[in-house]
């Protein structure tokens, strides 16, 4: 397993897109921290950029990588290797490289300018989001055979998680505004890893006061250690469940 992970990582790190992504994150985070005199404000600006860019790059890059290495996977499957080993190695390789790119590009500036609880929370959720979207991309890629269709699906998935989901939530909130929805909203936020990350970081920033009664409920739940632990386990589930499903599919796939 280690051997294949090694080759996957070498292959990815040589990819220019990966270097460009790291530099892009680095420029943005350094720029944001240097433009604002208050680094907490910088963190807030960085938050929105990261929550859009990281899932997009993770999901697109992974899906394209899996499609482009179809022949490589075929070659490996014809060798004395377990399919599970091959698939998990590709997953680990992709997850490690994307997490590494995020760590170098955004993590190091965060640690330099804002080594606070909020900074660490942002670093942690950013790393988790990178891995989550690798898992989702691999599930989408193994389910759809056609490359163009598969990449289309990943774009739609990204659109759903970063834009459409919020729209749906707002719609629900307006429709049911006569009912107490606050507790329900806590549950709903588990359905979207991006939202969950955003809530976790915002609450660490102590701006929940701006969010009214829902903010108070969120603070009550996510502000506690149990809440944070629970949220992180939900984020972990977002890694485990898609990877498990995709592994199951890959085990039975005709190559």
């Amino acid at each position, binding site marked *: 397993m280690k*051997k*294949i992970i090694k*080759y996957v990582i070498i*292959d990815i790190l*040589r*990819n220019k897109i990966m270097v460009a992504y790291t530099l892009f994150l680095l420029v943005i985070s350094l720029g944001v921290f240097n433009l604002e005199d208050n680094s907490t404000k910088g963190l807030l600006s960085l938050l929105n950029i990261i929550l859009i860019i990281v899932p997009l790059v993770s999901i697109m890059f992974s899906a394209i990588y899996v499609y*482009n*290495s179809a*022949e*490589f996977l*075929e*070659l*490996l*499957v*014809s*060798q*004395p*290797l*377990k*399919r599970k080993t091959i698939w998990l190695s590709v997953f680990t390789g992709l997850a490690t490289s994307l997490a590494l790119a995020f760590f170098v590009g955004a993590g190091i500036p965060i640690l330099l300018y804002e080594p606070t609880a909020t900074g660490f929370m942002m670093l942690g959720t950013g790393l988790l989001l990178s891995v989550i979207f690798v898992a989702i991309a691999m599930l989408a890629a193994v389910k759809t055979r056609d490359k163009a269709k598969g990449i289309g699906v990943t774009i739609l998935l990204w659109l759903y998680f970063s834009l459409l989901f919020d729209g749906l939530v707002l719609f629900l909130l307006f429709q049911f505004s006569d009912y107490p929805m606050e507790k329900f909203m806590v549950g709903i936020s588990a359905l979207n890893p991006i939202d969950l990350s955003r809530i976790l970081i915002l609450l660490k920033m102590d701006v929940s006061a701006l969010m009214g009664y829902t903010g108070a409920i969120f603070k009550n739940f996510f502000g506690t250690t149990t809440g944070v632990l629970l949220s992180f386990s939900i984020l972990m589930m977002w890694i485990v469940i898609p990877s498990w499903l995709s592994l199951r599919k890959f085990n*039975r*796939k*005709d*190559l």
Partner: protein
Amino acid sequence: MIIASNVSKKFGKLKALDNVSVTCNKGECIALIGPNGSGKTTLIKSILGMVVCNSGFITFNGKNILHDWQYRAHIGYMPQIGRYPDNMSIGQMLSMMKDIRHHKDAILDEDLVIQFKLNELLDKRMRTLSGGTRQKVSAALAFLFNPDVLILDEPTAGLDPVAAEILKEKIIKEKQKGKLILITSHILSELDDLVTQVIYMQDGVLQFHKSIEDLRKDTGQEKLSKAIASVMIKING
């Protein structure tokens, strides 16, 4: 050595393999012949476990290959179109395969690497290679680990005459060592002095599995290409 029993495989509505049963033994050199889309590659891929058959089973040395993976250590496979990670060089590719497959006590068979002069191209990236050079890499990889079974899917397609001749000689040499060799090819003339048995498939159905002597006797033709042509005419009415 390899026994397939009533193997069927469907791709959607298309029956790629329909109740195929074959037995392949050590020391045989078997030609898999059939028109395009007759299920040759699907049969090969199901032996390699790359395609999971819908019904029936395949055993390798008496063990069912389903959920097994170690048996592939005994197989050298040369795909029809060998495509490899673009960013890797030939040298890295070879060392990766050695890294994955090689055991300390096994002897590497680098004949083809030397004869195809791949040693001079070690720094070339896979992306920049011509189709023929890729085929050479595929062939070298298939033979590299001295496997007991060689599965070659259109081995000489895209190779220049010199390289094709080298490969043919290598196949004959391995055959004499008593290995099982499975070849698909559309260039029947080059199979003449290689194969001992012929499997003919059409529309996913195994039409016959005969030794080449029987085939020659039955059709009255000395050349394999003519013998197959007369069989095809007979089957298709």
